[in-house]
């Protein structure tokens, strides 16, 4: 008899089973059982947000160059495990060329966003003209802990395209993976665990969006939501639950295989702009300057 692997959650750099003890079966397109996954619960969300909060400040405090190196490292680790990702996609019913293309695009996207780490701040900052003796400048800062519902149509590329711009910008994330095809997400967690990304920066849960999203959206310690295309009423409910702490809710409905769907604005969507007024001293009779 074949033993099916049970894919676990990824929280705070560990691979725990769901607190609820539940699991569900992953099936291929033809309906054949290929693995088991954890059916995550509210308390898993709670634990994941706690881990994400704990990790966020330290991650944001790393130098931009170091974050770039670490994300580049993800690409390298992904490259060495390419075979496994392709195999899993084929198992789910993708054709071999389609699987190869998706994995290759995912690696490319890692390298793409690694390059942004020490550039997005410069490109989205400004010095603002003001009519008083102040040096006035605006810089982006990470929003904090971001809740993500990963793309439910693709297994790997959507997931990667959503979380990378968030962590490049110094946020930490709690991701609800693709419910029907969570294998790539959990395998990606294994990549993260071996690629210098500090535990807690990315937390990955598997299970039903309808069960976990309300808790994530209502959580007062989650600062924003990045949602892939989900049913209308789920999105509406999430927006309502997000009101109490004024979470920013972004809904994305994109074909992530297309390289057009990458870019700076995916990073700045989850940045807050901080503006500073710095007084300019008048020295002797000279004209103020800085």
């Amino acid at each position: 008899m074949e033993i099916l692997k049970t894919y676990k959650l990824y929280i705070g750099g560990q691979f725990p089973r769901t607190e609820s003890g539940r699991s569900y079966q992953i099936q291929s397109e033809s309906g054949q059982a290929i693995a088991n996954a954890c059916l995550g619960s509210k308390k898993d969300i709670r634990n994941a947000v706690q881990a994400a909060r704990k990790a966020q400040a330290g991650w944001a405090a790393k130098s931009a160059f170091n974050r770039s190196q670490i994300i580049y490292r993800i690409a390298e680790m992904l490259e060495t495990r390419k075979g496994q990702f392709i195999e899993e996609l084929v198992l789910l019913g993708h054709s071999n060329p389609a699987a190869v293309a998706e994995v290759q695009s995912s690696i490319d996207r890692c390298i793409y966003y690694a390059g942004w780490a020490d550039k997005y701040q410069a490109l989205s900052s400004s010095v603002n003209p003001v009519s008083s003796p102040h040096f006035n400048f605006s810089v982006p800062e990470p929003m904090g802990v971001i809740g993500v519902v990963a793309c439910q149509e693709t297994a790997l590329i959507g997931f990667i395209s959503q979380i990378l711009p968030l962590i490049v910008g110094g946020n930490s994330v709690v991701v609800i993976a693709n419910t029907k095809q969570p294998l790539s997400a959990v395998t990606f967690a294994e990549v993260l665990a071996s690629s210098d990304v500090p535990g807690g920066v990315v937390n990955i849960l598997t299970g039903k969006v309808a069960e976990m999203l309300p808790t994530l959206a209502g959580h007062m310690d989650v600062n924003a939501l990045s949602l892939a295309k989900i049913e209308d009423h789920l999105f509406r409910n999430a927006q309502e639950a997000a009101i109490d702490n004024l979470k920013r809710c972004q809904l994305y409905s994109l074909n992530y295989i297309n390289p057009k769907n990458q870019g700076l604005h995916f990073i700045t969507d989850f940045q807050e702009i901080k503006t500073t007024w710095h007084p300019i001293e008048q020295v002797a009779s000279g004209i103020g300057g800085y």
Partner: protein
Amino acid sequence: MQPKYTPPELLVRLKSVPPIDQIGTHERILKIQSRSLKGPAKLHGLRLALSMIDLTTLEGKDTPSKVRQLCYKAQHLHGLSPELPTVAAVCVYPTMVGVAKKALANSSIKVAAVSTAFPSGQAPFEVKKLDTLYALEHGADEIDMVISRGHFLAGEYNYVFDEIAAIKALCGSARLKVIFETGELDSLDQVRRISDLAIAAGADFIKTSTGKIQPAATFPVVLTMLGAIKDHFDKTGQMIGMKPAGGISSAKIALQHLLLVKEVLGEAWLTNEWYRFGASSLANDLLMQYQKQLTGKYQSTAYFSID
């Protein structure tokens, strides 16, 4: 020199305190920990735990302003929930008693002072006496004294007994809590021995730790101390208070402690007259869990005061 109080028969008795069954203790604790309070019972437990807190600041960097701020928090736990109780007491160093007393003048919150050369207890008896008198003169309602662990571990039980009895004699109407610093006592048998000794010497409360050393208020230690209180009550009908302190930072742990005290000692101890938590960060977690129960939403520390 400190006066002599120790009855000779006590010294004989302490040599043969009932040995503590370590495995049994752990198993009993696991049973308690597997229970989970829900709904109204949880809300009640959270409110009760809040009312039992000795809100504590014991830092070298304490200032009068810091203590005043703590006293404000003691009286107003959360702006959005006026139905909440206040904490039981504010616990400070003797030098801050006057400030705390003034800040709490219009409330029923007690002021507790740590004493006898807290936290080490390494000072001559005369110094400990002055330390205690200073706190009492400034209005301390409760004295949290530390025992001389060195003497206790060296087997000089009469010294430790006399010291506690002497401080108790100074206290008058102020209640005396005796801190064991169980993290330094090595075994549960020792914890049981010092519990019996302190109760016999006149402690109104027995308290696990100073909060300066880990491990502090672990469940096995607390259960052992509760056992000593229970045996004393069964024998004499006299109630002794319990104060776990140090390391109780989450609502979950606090509620488990309440379950433990209810199981071992019963309802009579479920009031802040007989049970206290020594803690600084516990209050916020209890408040966050309270809000979670009310709103159904997990909370963020960003919306709760830091001190």
